[in-house]
């Protein structure tokens, strides 16, 4: 319940920001448009990695998922609906407020925090799946970031990333196309020099003691106005990496604890 003393302008500003994130035709429509393809890929990678039944609608069985740079919760909400136990973190407190409010209205229990992956790592928290979607291109220190990602993964856990390649085509399309021509993204969202090629990202992942799989392209089809997975990694691409060790170790620990209690 809102107290009458709360400034109406403040409420309005908040609702405008919420609409910025959640209006699927609004300023974030590029991310919304990417969501079906991103989620299909997350689903497929997780079902392969954890041996989940791909025909199951709620594919996750309480798997813990950390979404780094969750924004307004565009990925957290679908993943929660698919059965995951989701934690969303974002350094911008306004984003977290929007995500919290929206998640509550949708009736979803998602743990949103204004935090960074470094803080989560320092607290020793671990997750089965870590998402860094459209994040690494904004990060100042990539090796440190990937090391933190590795630390917040459970042994045998799965890291899922998406980002932009550093090619002429990505320069033309992502910068001029998306930002200026299509007005999809707020200007200055991307800094082309910071983009990593799939090869660079793979070696950085290995250096962070992760085991990357082959990258796949994420391609926009302007005729159908939708994204799909492809072999063409020249602009947007996705890559998954696993943490060494087996989940069994963690699962067995859990079972041992359970046995002690009984």
């Amino acid at each position, binding site marked *: 319940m809102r107290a009458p003393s709360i400034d109406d302008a403040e409420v309005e500003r908040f*609702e*405008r920001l*919420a*609409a910025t994130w*959640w*209006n*699927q*035709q*609004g300023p974030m429509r590029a991310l*919304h*448009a990417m*969501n*079906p393809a991103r*989620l*299909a890929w997350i*689903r497929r990678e997780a079902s392969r990695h954890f041996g989940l039944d791909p025909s199951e*609608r*709620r*594919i996750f069985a309480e798997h813990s998922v950390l979404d780094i740079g969750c924004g307004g919760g565009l990925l957290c*909400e*679908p*993943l*929660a*609906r*698919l059965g995951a136990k989701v934690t969303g973190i974002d350094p911008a407190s306004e984003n977290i407020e929007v995500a919290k409010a*929206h998640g509550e*209205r*949708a009736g979803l229990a998602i743990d949103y925090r204004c935090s960074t992956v470094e803080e989560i790592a320092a607290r020793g928290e671990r997750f089965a799946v870590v998402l860094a979607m459209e994040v690494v291109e904004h990060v100042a220190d990539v090796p440190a970031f990937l090391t933190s990602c590795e630390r917040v993964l459970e042994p045998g856990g799965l890291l899922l990333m998406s980002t932009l390649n550093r090619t002429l085509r990505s320069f033309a399309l992502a910068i001029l196309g998306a930002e200026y021509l299509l007005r999809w993204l707020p200007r200055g969202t991307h800094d082309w020099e910071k983009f990593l090629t799939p090869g660079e990202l793979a070696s950085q992942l290995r250096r962070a003691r992760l085991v990357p799989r082959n990258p796949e392209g994420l391609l926009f089809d302007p005729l*159908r*106005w*939708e994204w799909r997975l492809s072999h063409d990694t020249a602009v947007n691409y996705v890559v998954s990496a696993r943490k060494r060790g087996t989940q069994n170790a963690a699962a067995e620990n859990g079972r041992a604890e359970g046995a002690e209690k009984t």
Partner: protein
Amino acid sequence: MPHRVKSSHRSVGSREPTAIPLGKGRRERADAVVAGDGIVALAAALALRTALGEQARILVLGKPAPIAHEIDPRAYAIAGSARRLLEGLGVWPVLEADAQPMEHIFVTDSRLDDVVRPAFLSFLGDTHEPESGNTFAHMIEAKALRNALLGALNLARIETVPLRVHALIHESDDDRIVLRAESGEVIASALLVAADGARSTCRELAGISWIGWDYPQLGLTTTIAHEREHGARAYEHFLPGGPFAILPLKGRRSSIVWAEGKREAKRLLALDDREAFIEITRRFGHELGALRLEGRLIGYPLSFGIARAFTARRLALVGDAAHVIHPVAGQGLNLGLQDVAALADAVSEAAHLGLDPGNPFTLSAYQRARRFDTTAMAALTDGLVRLFSNDHLPLRALRDFGLSLVDRAPPVKRLLANRAAGRVRA
């Protein structure tokens, strides 16, 4: 947690809001709302249950009730694609006993006083699927179809609410469409499926325009009991006033459907049973022995229309709300059920991605899947009607020639037969 709507007596919304404030006011919430209570609406609600799973809350806005045969003597030709949907919804086993397979269809072109009708197009066996013998469609009476769907609706725990949509409201974050009923109730849903017929209120409220016209004819239908077996045969005679179809039902009965110029149709509808019987016999012919009228003759307007778009924000049009075509090829309900199947496919995909069922990508996938197919069928049936509803001699000669040409060209005929069986995909 959402509270349940059990009846219209319980007030849901308290005041009369022009825009409902976020997080304020009491309102019902649903994952999907189906407006309408016809066959396509009921099938849509069941298909959404399959696509969204047991946890989803699905509401039907309308008063779905059984209909007596005397009130609605219509029967439908269910093509293969529509049958597969009904199988998927689990209602086919219930329907099968009432479903009359159609194995042959004879298309003829004749004036009323011709003694022998030339059978130009016989679709005998051309459309058979290995698993279903020669059957290319099943005839099912409206009553049986409706009862089977109503039974399944109860089992699927789909709530029905006897409300009519009065206003549609969009909120800033675009997560749901808010429906307000005339009586003030408010329901917020991720998806609204408008299955509320050719004069769809939802379509109008969503601002989707409609292109259409009425044919200068009325459709007439009734059921006939006859002495001899129909042998699973259907006949389509193209009479000067329009097509006249005899479609086999279970038992020694057939459904007859035809189009007649408005003046003549009104004259026929005003006749008493004995006089009507004579008129019907004259058109029916004597191939099936002695006849008896079973139920009354009913008439309905024939029109053509198609919505400019099949979707709007958080709204999908299905069935007659999206398109109304001439019943000449018996495809109206089949198209509607194909809409339902396509929408359920798109919604199921969304559910597997954790996306809500009314998101714009799901709706555009639905529109892509349906609009072309429907437009093609609408144009085809409209063309057929214009070609055949004419007694002009050169045109008759032309179409006789055309039909016999089609008959001698098996691939063309197979295409037409497949079209009739709903097996051609755009």
